[in-house]
């Protein structure tokens, strides 16, 4: 039993020391270990093979996206780019309404033999900026094709 105040203070100092230690390890290692997705360049550099399940992330290349009519169709197509490497995505399933050209996206799936990427899940990324729409503008989430 730690009944004396002195013993408790030892406990306090020990707890603070463990906290600092854990914090330091977490701050220096977690950041490099936790990889949510690969960019097209990283996937190329790591030689990700066909059929290997990965997440791929980047920007939707301007002018590469299928017409919005095809959202939810079996082959919704767009290109994900990181500026140097482009990957042609063929997506099945629901396409988020916020998926836009020039904005970020993450796809889950795998490369197929011809080098295209078959995505079973498309995740749209949005930024931290919030602003009222300009007069007469249509909000992006329901932009017509």
């Amino acid at each position, binding site marked *: 039993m730690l009944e004396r105040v002195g013993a408790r203070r030892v*406990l306090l100092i020990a707890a603070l020391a463990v*906290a600092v230690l854990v914090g330091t390890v*977490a701050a220096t290692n977690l950041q490099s270990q936790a990889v949510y997705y690969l960019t097209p360049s990283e996937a190329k550099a790591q030689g990700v093979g066909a059929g290997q399940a990965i997440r791929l992330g980047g920007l939707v290349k301007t002018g590469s996206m299928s017409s919005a009519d095809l959202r939810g169709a079996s082959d919704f197509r767009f290109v994900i780019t990181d500026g140097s490497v482009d990957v042609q995505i063929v997506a099945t399933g629901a396409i988020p309404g916020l998926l836009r050209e020039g904005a970020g996206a993450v796809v889950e799936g795998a490369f197929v033999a011809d080098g295209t990427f078959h995505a079973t*899940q498309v995740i749209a990324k949005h930024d931290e*900026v*919030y602003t009222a729409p300009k007069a007469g503008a249509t909000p992006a989430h329901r932009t017509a094709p």
Partner: protein
Amino acid sequence: MTETTIPRGNTLPRIRPWLGIAAAASFVVASVMALFWAPTDAVQGDVYRILYVHVPLAWLAYLAFVIVFLASVGWLWTKRPFFDAVAVASAEIGVLFTGLFLVAGSIWAKPTWGVWWTWEPRLVTTAIMFVMYVGYLLLRGLSTDFSRRANRAAVFGIIAVIDVPIVHLSVLWANSLHQLPTVLRAAGSPALDSSMLLTLMVSLFAYTLIYTYFMSARVSLERARQGRLWTT
């Protein structure tokens, strides 16, 4: 046990009803502002309004866990049972708020990102925070000896707080999905319209009052339990 001071009196009993009224009133004002007064968002439309619930709850959860940390240090340093009461009260409210902001975030994620959940750094570190503080509450159930329970909980409460800054900073890691901080951003002024910022601040004020009200009620309940512990 003999060295421990016997708790007496309640925490803020006189002003508590007024605190409750102020919390409820400001919550109504914040909700009306968030739903009707703040403009819609140019990119996301109306769904972004979840921000006015999600963000204040998240900040208050951070605050709650920092207070668990401070109260834990206070208990180990001074042996005053008051600090243990504050720690357990704040941990319970923090777990509640974390659960709520996870649910709110999930409801926001589905129509914007397209998924209810994904194993992204911010989401994973938040889930860890939630589980750790649920663990903190379970740990408190493992001993009926007051001082042993308080000591164990305090050590855990000091170590667990490490995840709070990790959760906050996880959005800055490379290759993540969650958007960056809007208000406390590195680039200077908040990235939202002034009417949106005002609505967020009113919401934050309302949730802070709710937290304070819950704390006042829960701490006084814990003090009453402590009092029974020493008089029976």
